[in-house]
């Protein structure tokens, strides 16, 4: 079991888990999102290879209306 903090919320997942698998489990596949892992950008193209680890802090963002 690996515990991740995603957008400030703690979530537990069965490991091992890649960024691409996480996106799918969060039902975000096909959406335009950007991912930051422990303060570093994870390029979308590398999601299938990016192995997440226990304790990772992730930010997943989208574009919304704003001034």
């Amino acid at each position, binding site marked *: 079991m690996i515990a991740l903090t*995603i957008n400030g919320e703690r979530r537990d997942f069965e490991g091992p888990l890649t960024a691409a698998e996480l996106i799918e489990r969060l039902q*975000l596949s096909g959406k*335009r999102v950007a991912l930051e892992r422990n303060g570093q950008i994870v390029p979308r193209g590398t999601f299938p290879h990016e192995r997440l680890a226990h304790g990772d802090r992730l930010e*997943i963002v989208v*574009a*919304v*209306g704003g*001034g």
Partner: protein
Amino acid sequence: MDQLIIAGNSYASRLLVGTGKYKDFEQTRSAIEASGAQIVTVAIRRTNIGQNANEPSLLDALPPSKYTYLPNTAGCYSADDAVRTLRLARELLDGHDLVKLEVLGDPHTLFPNVIETLQAAATLVKDGFKVMVYTSDDPIIARQLEDIGCVAVMPLASLIGSGMGILNPWNLQLILEKAKVPVVVDAGVGTASDAAIAMELGCDAVLMNTAVAKAQNPVLMAQAMRKAVEAGRDAFRAGRMPKKLYSATPSSPTTGLIQPQPSSPPRGRA
């Protein structure tokens, strides 16, 4: 052709608009279309994780192929948060590097924290971003931001969302006199005349959100703002007449007037 040039790209419209505070995406789309804006600001926020997979997306309402997105850092209170937000934005928008930096000082006034803003601007410019920067109307800070390499300086006219109009045209003029990059009035515009005044002062463009989104009729106001920015720009380029207290030179010819009738005795008398 009189075009706005930012970081080497030309834009026919000198009105930049935000995409926040609208009733729904349909109203957002209609208002922005009526405004004629080509550059639209967007915010970067945490997505909901799994709760609502079918939430509509802003990118569907305003396709990035049709508009130049200007991701902002609204809501950031530190240089670090602003830099991280814009790195996420660049990844989100496939390497798009034109951004709006704003680092706020407090949630009460939303006044910019210029110290954090300067730090963030330096980091972002070094990292290859083209930074359009929201700042106070302090001409010294504006110059420093330009020296750092920002591609546009965007002083406030009054506080964000206040609709108070241009409170200090003199400071804007001081900035305009020295700036070599476009000066965009960002924040404070309330109605069309405010936008026209900003353009008449010589500003290169105006950026607004609330003035349109919170008008009773946002689409009509968007159209009014488009006209105001165009009219103000034309007036600036035309060069206004000097102001004077009164004019001793009437607008109509002073010769060729008909003469007063010679006094003649009333009719019907001998």
